[in-house]
């Protein structure tokens, strides 16, 4: 029968205090964590994928409604948010870089910057949502409420949206579902960021061990990538003529 090469005592005699008992080495522990995060991100791709699939079908069917409804979205705010989010991706990438070099203060500063950019995104998103929920002035002088509290989409006041109300409604459902789920990921991300930041301030990360910063970075970049697709798919359906 196979015999043991090493006993637990041998293995753990010189192990880092960060190492969990069931791992043999720190490298193994780190690679397990990284692979776990990547597999998780793949599930996230499929999670958003279901909504992208619905988007694809209905955009094909209801292009006029999608084009018209897309123009009701605020491209300036959407554009600013794109820049903000990509910027936060940069700061988190730099934070990981600083952590790799063991620069504590820089790591903390960049994580704070990431959090602030994330919050900026959410605040802008809040104002975008608010406009859609409480009412919205159209160029033709009418007001529409795309998402009133009652739960359905009233565009009957709008001359050009009313005839394609059901198409507009489906676009708005997908808009809220996609951006809402994206915003939820941002909120969760900011929550995790708080923990990481606290750990960073306490000096938990070293040049040798900063796995949580790296994993958080991966998650944050993923959220950024989702937005990179959402922006053109939702805001830029039919901006020309």
């Amino acid at each position, binding site marked *: 029968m196979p015999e043991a090469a090493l006993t637990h005592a041998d293995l753990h005699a010189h192990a880092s205090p960060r190492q969990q008992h069931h791992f043999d080495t720190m490298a193994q522990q780190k690679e397990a964590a990284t*692979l776990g995060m990547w597999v998780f991100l793949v599930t996230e791709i499929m999670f958003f994928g279901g909504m992208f699939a619905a988007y694809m079908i*209905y955009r094909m069917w209801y292009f006029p409604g999608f084009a018209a409804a897309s123009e009701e979205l605020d491209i300036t705010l959407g554009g600013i948010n794109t820049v903000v989010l990509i910027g936060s991706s940069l700061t988190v990438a730099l934070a990981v870089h600083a952590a790799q070099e063991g620069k504590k203060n820089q790591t903390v500063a960049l994580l704070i910057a990431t959090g602030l950019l994330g919050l900026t995104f959410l605040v802008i998103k809040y104002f975008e949502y608010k406009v859609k929920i409480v009412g919205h002035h159209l160029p033709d002088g009418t007001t529409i409420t795309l998402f009133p509290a009652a739960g359905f989409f009233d565009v009957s006041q709008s001359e050009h949206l009313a005839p394609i109300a059901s198409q507009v409604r489906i676009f708005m*459902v997908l808009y809220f579902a996609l951006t809402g789920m994206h915003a939820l990921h941002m909120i969760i991300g900011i929550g995790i960021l708080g923990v990481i930041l606290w750990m960073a301030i306490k000096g938990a990360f070293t040049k040798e061990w900063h796995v949580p910063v790296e994993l958080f970075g991966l998650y944050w970049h993923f959220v950024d990538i989702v937005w990179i697709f959402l922006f053109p798919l939702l805001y830029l359906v039919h901006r020309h003529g």
Partner: protein
Amino acid sequence: MTTSDAATAVMPARHYLNEQRGIRSWLLTTDHKRIGLLYLFSITAFFFLGGFFALLIRLQLLSPEGALMTSDVYNRMFTMHGVIMVFFFLIPSIPATLGNFLIPIMIGAKDLAFPRINLLSWYIYVLAGLFALASLVLGGVDTGWTFYTPFSTSFSNTPVVTAGLGVFIAGFSSILTGLNFIVTIHRMRAPGMTWFRLPLFVWAHYATSLIMVLGTPVVAITVLLLAFERVLRVGIFDPSIGGDPVLFQHLFWFYSHPAVYIMVLPGMGVMSELVASGARKNVFGYSFVAFSSLAIAIIGFLVWGHHMFVAGQTVYAGLVFSILTYLVGVPSAVKTFNWTATLYKGSISYDTPTLYAFGFLGLFLVGGLTGLFLAAIGLDIHLTDTYFVVAHFHYIMVGGTLMAYLGGLHFWWPKITGRLYPEGWAKLSALVVFIGFNLTFFPQFIVGYLGMPRRYAMYPPEFQLFNVMSTAGASILGFGYLLPMIYLTWAWFYGKPAGNNPWGSKGLEWETTSPPPTFNFDRTPVVTEATHAYGHPEEVKVA
């Protein structure tokens, strides 16, 4: 029970069951073996709940006009039977119990890669289960387990959202289990445990985990959109305001067809172990069996449209889904032939696990072959939504998965509890289950071809004979399922100590004590040979 040392075996002094005691030590455990048992207890509860509904369904169908309840109640019964059996028993069944318990041991690891996430997945499962029970307390759901729109969104007056949230939450439990398995199999293997030395049970779970991770998120978002639709009437699946009910079916089956492979692939993994151990022989064509699991996992994602041949899908889509369905049948056939060939020149025992393995082979064969009928698109037009389909998927899920699950429980019960169960009773139960199962479900093929639609609370009188046979079989089957629960529980407390390796089997799990210590091995094992390498024991080296 053939090895001579079984008679003299004693329980080890310290093992995972007695190292810590008290309810807290169970509810806060991160030991994969204990979490496996937590899953075992909870899914067994759901199994008997779902089985109780099955029994009521069969009693109702004793007479053509419905013997027991109104159509309304009957509809809730079969829906809750389906929801509970699929999402709360079959999907977690083998992976969350046997997989959880065995994968780390089989690859020579101390635990899964993420023990706390493993515990979390059980709590998520329990939370999901509470939602399912809540929907039951609120009167039960009557949409069918498939939740087809627009009935589920706009017409049903039952707690669809509650049940849907149960399914949604259960999905995350499944995703976390799959994620944990993938990382564990990649990163936690003992020295020398190369990919092609992995037990086929581990290969099968690797393939299963891929489906869990890649498919489950889609059904999660679909069910969420369904709830959104039901609460807000947003039109995404509601045809009266522009939505497409067929889109719901597509998204639902994108997961729910591969989910069938989540249910049966682990059963195939168990089967490979049972056959190899029962014949004391390495599995014939190891790499073909291993890769056929991966092939099933991948092609299994390309066939979902075969649930929708009459659902308004186009002719062209139907044809492509039909041919791909035939392709996914081939790896299953390859496995079956390899298991059969494994028996050739083996040293075949008639122990209970082997009997279950034979049972699995027979029932899976019928289930798989009748799948070919349903894949033939011209024939499926007649057969779909009839009892033929019901019989087919019960042969796969109950005949296949449940036989493998019971066989696996018997095979590893001495390892899990450290004790032997009464072999005579176990053989009897295997026989009763096999006979009861066939009597229940074989007549359903015939009544299905005769045209009896599924989900009928009442039926024309000429179908009665087959339904009576089915109900008679179901009562035998129910008895067959109760037996193991009783004697396996008894054995846990009063069985004779099993010793490390009561079957004289190969595999890392048989080299540690029964029950194993908390971290599975006192010393990290070093693997030097292929799985189930009987016949040339001298090749085993000391590392």
